[in-house]
């Protein structure tokens, strides 16, 4: 049985690990390499690492840091941040990263998805769609540049277009739910699952294993990602990196799949 993927999503700023709320107020939570070592020990399904400065500041990906992360990482790694060309994507794959994530650049130049897919294969091209709705609207639109620019385009429409162009996976990332730990946007997740034929991962709002199980109950075998849930503990958000045990995943997440 193919299993749902439970994925820590780590944000990097100035070389350090941070966690945001609604894409704002980054709080320093530690050293990325140290976090990777802990997730190795816990046997995490996969890791997503996003450099939130690279795109916003228009700088090159930090290849030295990516190489260190890839060498340390004993699970599949998806890296995003600052990738604007197929050449950059290829270079990152050669450093030992399994998948590259693009966001702003894919929205500005959708052909880039095709170019990258031709270079490294569709299976390694991940598109991250940061989304939120406008005031008094339920319509979810795609935002870029770390949630500062609204493309005014429907998230489902963009997902379908980029799938056709060669994306191998869509990561749906709710700006409104980021850091809130109050649950995922299940409605949008279900709509995305029905709209595309590639793997999807849902991110934004995960606060418990039960929240993650709800995504699996709604969508079946998908990726379920979270940030805060894996780096904070308790009401005062003390920094403590954790990951569920194989038994916990089986009891709560896989059982939700079996019950579908």
């Amino acid at each position: 049985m193919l299993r749902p993927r439970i994925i820590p999503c780590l944000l990097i700023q100035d070389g350090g690990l941070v966690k945001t709320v609604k894409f704002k107020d980054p709080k320093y939570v530690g050293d990325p390499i140290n976090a990777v070592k802990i997730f190795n020990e816990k046997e995490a399904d996969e890791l997503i690492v996003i450099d939130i400065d690279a795109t916003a500041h228009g700088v090159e990906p930090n290849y030295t840091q990516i190489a260190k992360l890839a060498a340390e990482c004993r699970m599949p790694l998806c890296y995003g941040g600052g990738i604007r060309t197929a050449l950059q994507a290829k270079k990152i794959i050669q450093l030992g990263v399994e998948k590259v994530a693009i966001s702003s650049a894919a929205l500005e130049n959708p052909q880039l998805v095709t170019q990258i897919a031709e270079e490294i294969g569709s299976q390694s091209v991940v598109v991250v769609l940061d989304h939120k709705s406008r005031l008094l609207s339920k319509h979810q639109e795609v935002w870029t540049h770390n949630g500062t620019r609204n493309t005014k385009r429907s998230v489902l429409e963009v997902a379908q277009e980029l799938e056709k162009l060669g994306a191998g996976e869509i990561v749906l990332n709710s700006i409104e739910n980021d850091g809130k730990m109050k649950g995922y946007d299940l409605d949008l997740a279900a709509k995305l699952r029905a709209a595309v034929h590639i793997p999807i991962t849902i991110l934004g709002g995960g606060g418990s294993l039960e929240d993650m199980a709800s995504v699996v109950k709604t969508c079946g075998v998908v990726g379920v990602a979270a940030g805060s849930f894996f780096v904070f503990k308790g009401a005062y958000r003390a920094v403590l990196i954790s990951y569920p045990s194989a038994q916990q995943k089986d009891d709560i997440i896989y059982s939700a799949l079996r019950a579908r």
Partner: protein
Amino acid sequence: MITIIDYGLGNIQAFVNVYRRLHIPVAVAQTAAQLDGATKLILPGVGAFDHAIERLDASGMRSTLETLVQEHKVPVLGICVGMQILANSSEEGSLPGLGWVPGCVRSFKSVPDLTDLPLPHMGWNDVASLGDNALFKGFEEEARFYFLHSFFFDCEHVQHRAAMSSYGLEFSCAVQAGNVYGVQFHPEKSHHFGVGLLKNFAEL
């Protein structure tokens, strides 16, 4: 000495790291001369089938590899696309494969009734070994590995199937023909399951 074939595809460093942690001597070959002294070979690979064959040709290592594997019977383990190019051909490309394990590589998409299957097949799936394949020696029943692919190996002879997995259909996720081994999944990214498999290969 385990030698990892670096022809520009795949995560070479991940294999080096696994073997260093196991204290098993490991080397990386980028030229035919560097294949000298190899007692085991690992052939990684990601991306498209034809591209992998072209890169292997361009590396200048192909004919030495063929001698080592086919004449000297040095055990070789192909990984992901490195496994697929062991076949005779692939629906993904037009170039012939190495032909070390008879079979062809097929697309999940070309299988009737599987048109709604999300592709690529991405994530952790169960792997059931067949017979007493040495790669899976000492494995618990629920061995699972990380997969990332849209094409699968279709063996011409059932006796070359070493392990099966299920995604839409049952497919050979590991193959073996004599000294030639191949796995579709990524042992280098499959935690203790993958370490166990790579250790078994080293101890063949």
